[in-house]
Every structure is written in C-alpha cells, then in structure tokens.
C-alpha cells in the first residue's frame, strides 16, 4: 500500500536519477545527486530503517557531495 507522498517521493527519485545522467553542467549534476541521496534517505526512513537513513544522509548527501565538489574544483566544470 503506497500513499500519495510515497508515490511523489519515488517519482522525484527517478526524475533526479535520470537528470543526473543527462545534465551537462557537472556542478548541477552533483547538487541533483545530493537531492537524490536526501530523497533516498527519506525513503529509507519511511521503509523503517532509520539507521540506514542517517548513514545515507551523512554519506550520500553530505560527504559524497563535498568530495565531488572538491573534485570539480580541481578539474573542469563542464562535461
């Protein structure tokens, strides 16, 4: 049984995942990837896994985004 907010979150998740692949600006892709991780963390919480949700929010939305931004600052921004 999926409620309306779950359908909204899953739809937005798929939109984010596809947008990461199609964006030409790499900094935008990294930010959208952070949004993807945040929605994934909310999904973990709604599925009853708060431990995974905390780790996903800290690693996926936090550290991965920082490391990608650091990588972009050392290389080129456009694909």
């Amino acid at each position, binding site marked *: 049984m999926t409620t309306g907010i779950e359908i909204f979150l899953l739809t937005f998740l798929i939109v984010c995942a596809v947008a990461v692949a199609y964006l030409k600006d790499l900094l935008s892709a990294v930010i959208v990837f952070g949004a993807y991780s945040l929605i994934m963390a909310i999904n973990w919480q709604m599925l009853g896994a708060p*431990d995974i*949700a*905390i*780790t996903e929010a800290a690693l996926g939305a936090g550290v991965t985004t*920082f*490391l990608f931004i*650091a990588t972009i600052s*050392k290389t080129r921004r456009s694909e």
Partner: protein
Amino acid sequence: MEDLLVRIICRLVVPFVQLYGLYVITHGHLSPGGGFAGGAIVGASMILFALAFNLEAGSRKLSHDISLLMESGGAIGFILAGFVAMLLGQNFLTNKAAGFPLGVPGNLFSSGAIFFFSVAIGFKVGSTMCTLFYNLIEGSDRHRSSE
C-alpha cells in the same frame, strides 16, 4: 569562494552539526546510528568548514598530519579495547563476561565496552573523511613539496 553569507551560515551551523555527530556516536547503543554514522557527520562538518572558508583555515582547525594520526589512533584504539577482554581471560571483544560493568538499561553508560568501540570507530571514520578530503584537495602538491 569569497561568499560572506556562506561563511556566516557555515560558522553558525558547524558547531551544531558536530554536537549532533557526537550525540549519534555516544548514543550508538540506544538510538539509530553509531560510530560510523556519527563519525561521518563529524567528518562532514570539518569538510564543510574547509570548503566554505579555505584550506588554510581548515588546516588550522585540524591539520592533515593530526587527521592522519587520529585515523590510525582510532583503529589502534578499537583493537586495544578488544584486547582488554583478552587480558582478562576472555575472547577478543568480549563485553559483559570480561567484567565490563553494565549499568541500568536505557542510560548512556549501559553498554560496557561498546561505548569505547563506538568512540574509537567515530574517531576513525571522521578523520578518514578529513584525510580523504585533504588528500584530494592537496593532491600532488604535498608529495612534490616533500620530495
């Protein structure tokens, strides 16, 4: 990256992020989270500080060498805390049978040795994040200057 708003917001947010990370580490046996998740939060706060200001300001708070030492020290501390049980005549990482006191369930100090394991893992993971970031940012400059 000379943005005043980013710097002010970062300076306001970083202490609360670190406090939350320490909370997640120390309450690892009571609530969701633990050493890994809390250490990742603490490490992310340090990376955020170094990214919003610059590398010199971040290195003054936590330099690359101290971060490396903390990384190794966390792993060694975890192993030593496991060997304490072996000194007391039990298996590696034994908790209650080795004589670690278990307090009242639900209190902060109610897990015996798991508290120390969580703190050691938190040190290890948090400083590993910082070391990764410093290695990535400094890159080959560090090796070139040391040669």
